[in-house]
């Protein structure tokens, strides 16, 4: 078994944050090398280094046993290392052939694009990917997402790629498309192409992978031949020991049912099918699942941002059928969104105005805003949530991620909700802020709120939730209590094939 790419004692730090610590990684030639780890484990950083997008702080890269410096993605490409990012980087308005040759067009003479030769070459590559019938002149925007993924792979193959890095390529694919992709990967392996494959989906990569490497907190914790592992072992390596230390367990007594959802169905590209759930006072309920499982769509529908096709939402026993953001807010729901830059913050406004945004009408005297009352209300929330800011009048963008999240949380709390919905509340914030947000959630539950939160992190959801619901492909596939939940159970429920087969 020969190594083609090796990272030797590679470390990478951004400012004071260590993204990678002394990682020695080997990709075996002509094999599918799977890299797994939770969010923030360092997978993407390692891949950026191997593809030339980032330089290691220390350590070296070996290619065919020779030390190399991959100064740029172009440099890496020239040495036969290609990468396919999770987010597709295609031009939907251009044809397949034009996409494959974007930025490196074949020329006729100096100025003119040789469209005929491009089309011919693109056709060859498509055939290599098993897409014999696909016309390279077709616009990429018209293709299903799976074929778009293949176009992206085709683009890498055109460069005579020897090592192909794929960063969660299946997150947006249907099961059939995943099968096609895996056939392509098996073909590539036969053609002596080395694949480095990043994934969250245990059931999937176990089918295709030859080697598995586990990263955790920037360190390489395991490297093993896939045949000598099982799912439970991999999960144990990913999660590590004792995640509870970081999170506060809610232990408050459970009261009346505050939120009841019955048979909620939401149409859309990521649909929600027939979801029922309850959240009681003093309870922290987690929803675990993979990207695209419909979790965000579910809470957005609960908050009135999406229309339900069927089903009922009851808050404190009363049906709330109007389904607008205003009516759901008045009923007692509040949502802290997943993407706070996109859905949470008004970047042009101050910290104070952001905190008061949803409740500004309360701080008026004779129809005019009362600066004093606004100031006092905002100050109270800043103290309560320990928000660190240069001042209430400062722009909200001057705050750190964790404090911005608290601003959005403060705004939600000011609406006096009974059930707080939090979509990935700890995403993109540092560990200290994470622990604070977790503590706040437990505290809110202790004060009698119902808390429903979405998380993609096994450790987090297991450590924080009294009850965990698992969503897969728009349905709730399993429910666990804090006593019965295990990583293995969550992972298998989140990738449940039985759900898929149950679909019409």
């Amino acid at each position, binding site marked *: 078994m020969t190594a083609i790419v090796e990272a030797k004692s590679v470390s990478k730090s951004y400012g*004071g944050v260590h993204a990678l610590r002394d990682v020695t990684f080997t990709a075996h030639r002509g094999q599918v090398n799977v890299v797994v780890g939770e969010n923030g484990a360092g997978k993407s950083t390692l891949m950026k280094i191997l593809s030339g997008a980032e330089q290691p702080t220390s350590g070296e890269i070996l290619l065919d046993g020779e030390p190399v410096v991959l100064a740029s993605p172009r440099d890496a490409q020239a040495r036969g290392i290609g990468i396919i990012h999770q987010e597709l980087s295609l031009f939907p308005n251009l044809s397949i052939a034009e996409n494959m040759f974007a930025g490196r067009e074949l020329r006729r003479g100096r100025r003119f694009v040789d469209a005929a030769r491009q089309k011919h070459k693109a056709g060859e590559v498509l055939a290599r990917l098993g897409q014999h019938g696909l016309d390279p002149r077709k616009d990429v925007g018209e293709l299903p997402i799976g074929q778009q993924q293949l176009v992206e792979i085709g683009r890498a193959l055109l460069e005579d790629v020897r090592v192909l890095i794929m960063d969660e390529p299946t997150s947006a694919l249907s099961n059939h498309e995943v099968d096609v992709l895996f056939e392509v990967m098996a073909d590539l392996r036969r053609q002596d192409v080395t694949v480095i494959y990043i994934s969250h989906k245990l059931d999937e990569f176990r089918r295709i992978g030859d080697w598995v490497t586990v990263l955790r907190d920037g360190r390489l914790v395991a490297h093993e031949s896939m045949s000598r592992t099982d799912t439970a072992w991999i999960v144990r390596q990913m999660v590590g020991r004792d995640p509870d230390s970081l999170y506060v367990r809610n232990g408050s007594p459970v009261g009346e049912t505050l939120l009841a959802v019955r048979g909620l169905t939401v149409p859309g590209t990521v649909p929600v099918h027939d979801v029922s759930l309850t959240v009681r006072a003093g309870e922290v309920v987690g929803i675990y699942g993979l990207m695209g499982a419909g979790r965000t769509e579910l809470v957005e529908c609960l*908050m009135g*941002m999406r229309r339900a096709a069927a089903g009922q939402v009851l808050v404190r026993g009363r049906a709330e059928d109007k389904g607008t*953001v*205003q009516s759901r*807010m008045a009923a007692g729901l509040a*949502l802290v*969104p997943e993407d706070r830059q*996109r*859905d*949470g*913050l*008004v*970047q*042009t*406004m101050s910290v104070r*105005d952001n905190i008061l*945004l*949803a409740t*500004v*009408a309360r701080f*008026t005297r004779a*129809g*005019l*805003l009362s600066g004093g009352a606004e100031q006092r209300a905002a100050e109270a929330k800043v103290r309560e949530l*320990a928000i*660190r*800011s*240069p001042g209430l009048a*400062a*722009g909200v*963008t*001057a*705050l*750190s991620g*964790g*404090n911005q999240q608290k601003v959005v949380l403060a*705004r939600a709390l000011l*609406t006096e909700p009974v059930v707080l919905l939090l979509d990935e509340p700890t995403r993109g914030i*540092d560990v*200290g*802020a994470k622990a*604070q947000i977790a503590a706040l959630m437990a505290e809110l539950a202790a004060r009698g709120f119902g808390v429903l939160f979405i998380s993609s992190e096994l450790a987090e959801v297991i450590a924080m939730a009294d009850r965990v619901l698992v969503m897969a492909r728009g349905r709730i596939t399993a429910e666990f209590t804090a006593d019965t939940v295990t990583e293995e159970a969550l992972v298998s429920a989140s990738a449940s094939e039985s759900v898929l087969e149950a679909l019409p």
Partner: protein
Amino acid sequence: MTDTHVREASTAAAPEPGAPRGRALARAALLLLRGRTLVVLVILILFFGAVSSEYLTQSNLILMTKHVAINAILAIGVTFVILTGGIDLSVGSIAGLASMVAGGLLFKGLGVPGGTVFFSAAVVIVIGIAVGALVGAVNGIVITRFKVAPFIATLGMLYVARGLAQLHSNGGTYPDLAGTPARGNTGFHFIGVDSVLGIPVAVWIMILVAIAAIVVTTRTPFGRRIFAVGGNERAAILAGIRVNRIKIAVYVISGACAALAGLLLTSELGAAYPDTATTYELNAIAAAVLGGTALSGGRGTIIGTVMGAFVIGFLSDGLVLVGVSTFWQSVVKGAVIVFAVITEQAQQRLQSGLARRTA
């Protein structure tokens, strides 16, 4: 939270030489940039005052301010729209349409079965403004309900409203708006011609509109929501703001302001013709931009817009007074507007740079 301390400590440990002075300089530059419209206005006044002896006379200042009033009122309305991240290209045409509706009512009355009805000048003014508000509401509904981009929707309305203005008189002019005592419709000249306490009524109206607009934008929940919609529409929706209502409201305000400006212009001229206020939308948008309103929405002030209108007005009239050709006036005006946006961006950069250093 701990990193705040760390950063403070590190800056204290290794102070850059001259950093405090650099920072003070940046602060001063920021202050100058923030007040740049005023600075430019003062420079304009000093310059033209030095070049022309007539420029700073009381009568010329009053005349120029009166010119400013009409554009300022249009621009205030447009500022509401731009603050939400929209644009209103139809205000000039709405002014023209309101002018023709009012002119028609004063000149030939309203034909009803059994005769012709004449309304008092005050009622005509109210009707004229209502027409503007109505057209604005149509803009708002097309934009929110049918999801047409504001640029396109109001560009369409620019043509539609102008066409309606021309249809109103079949292209002709209503030449006499004085009214007769017998019809009880005299007095339309009051708003555009008369003065109170030596200051034209039009200027008083501008002051009232500006004060009202300042109160609405800075002191009411509605105003706060306007900024929120322009700053981040999705966040505004999630905060329970009825974004569509806010948007319709700002186009109504813009239409009403446009109509009011059209009526002032008509009153001043003493006649209503369908081409009234053609291309005025550009001056209005220019005033708002000059006054620091960001076309991307969420940032801007009414007082800045008024100041912008003053700069444009005082610049144009000054150039006329000095005898610069109208062609050059156009060139200068355009250059000033682009320069204003460049300085706006410099201000934003400096501001966020300072904020980062303070944080």
